[in-house]
């Protein structure tokens, strides 16, 4: 019974603990992802507001064959982008714009006036396109440099038209790190609790099984006709419980069975066939001495013969 209990509880705990582990890790990464998304959007939006519009407009107006490093505005924007990265090193910020319906990098990212579509997949280009009109978040996406989450926020001129867009990429490895961390924190706790619970089940089942085994042995002895049971320790002590009640009932039953057997065996003794020969002879003599008997025994054979004469 002990191993059955242990197996049953182990199965139940395994299901429950697996669910807890999954839920904790999943929840932690979900929260982390949400925080990151908010942070990334806020950073992109902040940068789009803070970047000097004049410099952005100048760089956006540079032609493709110009050397941007000669432009003071370009250098200034490069400094701004670098300072953002200095504050949050894992973020990769860049500025891109639209030229003849095509997205091109301006500052950061790929070289100046390089088409976005050269390195970014079509789905990412679509998100970046949307970034021209409104602040946009792009969930997990992969390009040749790695896997990212990204935010795009438009830089608007005084008239409200979009001059360029600030893009920010953030490596998703951070989310995986959070998951890893959660696993490392949660799993040992779960493993220790699991082991402790199993030990507890083992202990409780031992407490139940041991007196049951003793009662089983005791009933075996009753079957053999031994009624002086030693049930000390499991009969009612200071703390009564169901087990001690059972042991008590058992002890009383054994006592009653023993008493009944004593009664029965004494009855068996009375079944000795004892005949007092002298008394028998006296009784027989009383009958045989009568005239009726003398007459009857003389006629006995004749009576029987007549009985069968038909």
């Amino acid at each position: 019974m002990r191993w059955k209990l242990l197996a049953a509880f182990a199965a139940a705990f395994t299901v429950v603990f697996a669910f807890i582990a999954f839920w904790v890790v999943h929840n932690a990464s979900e929260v982390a992802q949400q925080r990151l998304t908010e942070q990334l959007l806020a950073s992109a939006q902040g940068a789009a507001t803070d970047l000097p519009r004049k410099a952005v407009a100048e760089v956006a107006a540079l032609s493709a064959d110009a050397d941007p490093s000669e432009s003071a505005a370009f250098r200034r924007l490069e400094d701004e982008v670098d300072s953002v990265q200095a504050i949050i090193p894992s973020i990769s910020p860049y500025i891109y714009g639209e030229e003849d319906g095509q997205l091109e990098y301006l500052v950061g990212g790929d070289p100046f006036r390089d088409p976005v579509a050269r390195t970014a997949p079509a789905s990412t280009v679509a998100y970046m396109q949307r970034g021209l009109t409104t602040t946009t978040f792009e969930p997990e996406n992969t390009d040749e440099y790695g896997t990212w989450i990204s935010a795009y926020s438009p830089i608007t001129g005084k008239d409200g038209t979009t001059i360029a867009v600030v893009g920010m990429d953030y490596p998703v490895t951070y989310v995986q790190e959070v998951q890893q961390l959660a696993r490392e924190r949660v799993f040992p706790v779960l493993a220790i609790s699991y082991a402790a619970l199993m030990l507890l089940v083992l202990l409780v089942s031992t407490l139940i099984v041991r007196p049951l085994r003793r009662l089983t042995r005791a009933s075996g002895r009753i079957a053999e006709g031994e009624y002086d049971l030693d049930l000390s320790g499991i009969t009612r002590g200071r703390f009564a419980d169901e087990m001690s009640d059972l042991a008590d009932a058992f002890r009383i039953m054994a006592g009653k069975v023993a008493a009944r057997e004593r009664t029965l065996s004494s009855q068996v003794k009375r079944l000795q066939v004892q005949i007092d020969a002298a008394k028998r002879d006296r009784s027989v003599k009383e009958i045989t001495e009568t005239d009726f008997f003398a007459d009857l025994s003389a006629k006995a054979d004749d009576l029987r013969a007549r009985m069968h004469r038909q």
Partner: protein
Amino acid sequence: MTTVVSVHSFRGGTGKSNTTANVAANLAAAGSRVAVIDTDVQSPGIHTLFGFDQDFEHTLDDYLWGKIAIGDAVHDVSELVGAQESGGRLFLVPSSMQATDIARILRDGYDVVRLNEGFRELAASLDLDFLFIDTHPGLNEETMLSITVSDILLLLLRPDQQDFQGTAVTVDIARRLSVPDLQLVLNKVPDVVDLDDLRAQMDSAYAAPTAAILPLSTEVVINASGSLFSLTHPDHAWSQGIRDIVGVLQGRENAEPAV
């Protein structure tokens, strides 16, 4: 030829009527022509086992007083035990249950010679295989006559000292009356008893065979003579004991036919 079986016990309460009725019913069901005559006119009782609880028009008492022929007191109960299917028959000659009749028997006694004639007529007219005489307990003149004319004496006893002692007396008397076969039947034996030991003790105490040892059974007691227990409970140990007695009687009938 009719085998006359007297069923007797030294004291009352041995289950004499119950055993007689059950053995007779089993023999009839097995194809024998059987009659049971209740000569316990002082305390009749065997009729209840065959389902009768009202007064009979004619009884053994009427015959003993010369009012009727013995044939008039015969009741055919073959149907009750399903005897016809096997070609067997079962007849009952009851004693009167009326208090005035019993009082008269006790006061005046009856003619034992006439009783004996009744047995003879019954055996011949019904072409019986077995005639069972259910006797009054104790050794009085009527029972001694019944014992004398019987081919087999079935002596019932309970396992207690008074019965052991009284049965020894009856066995001695039966021997002096040259009863050809004497069989003991121990009834109401508690199941805690070592039966082999008891049988051996009986053999040495009476020098007579024990046809059956019937167990003390609450079920038989609860049945309370209301019906033929061995027919309604054929698998019961008590019913098996009844069949042991039947076997002994059938074996004797086949082995040494009465002359």
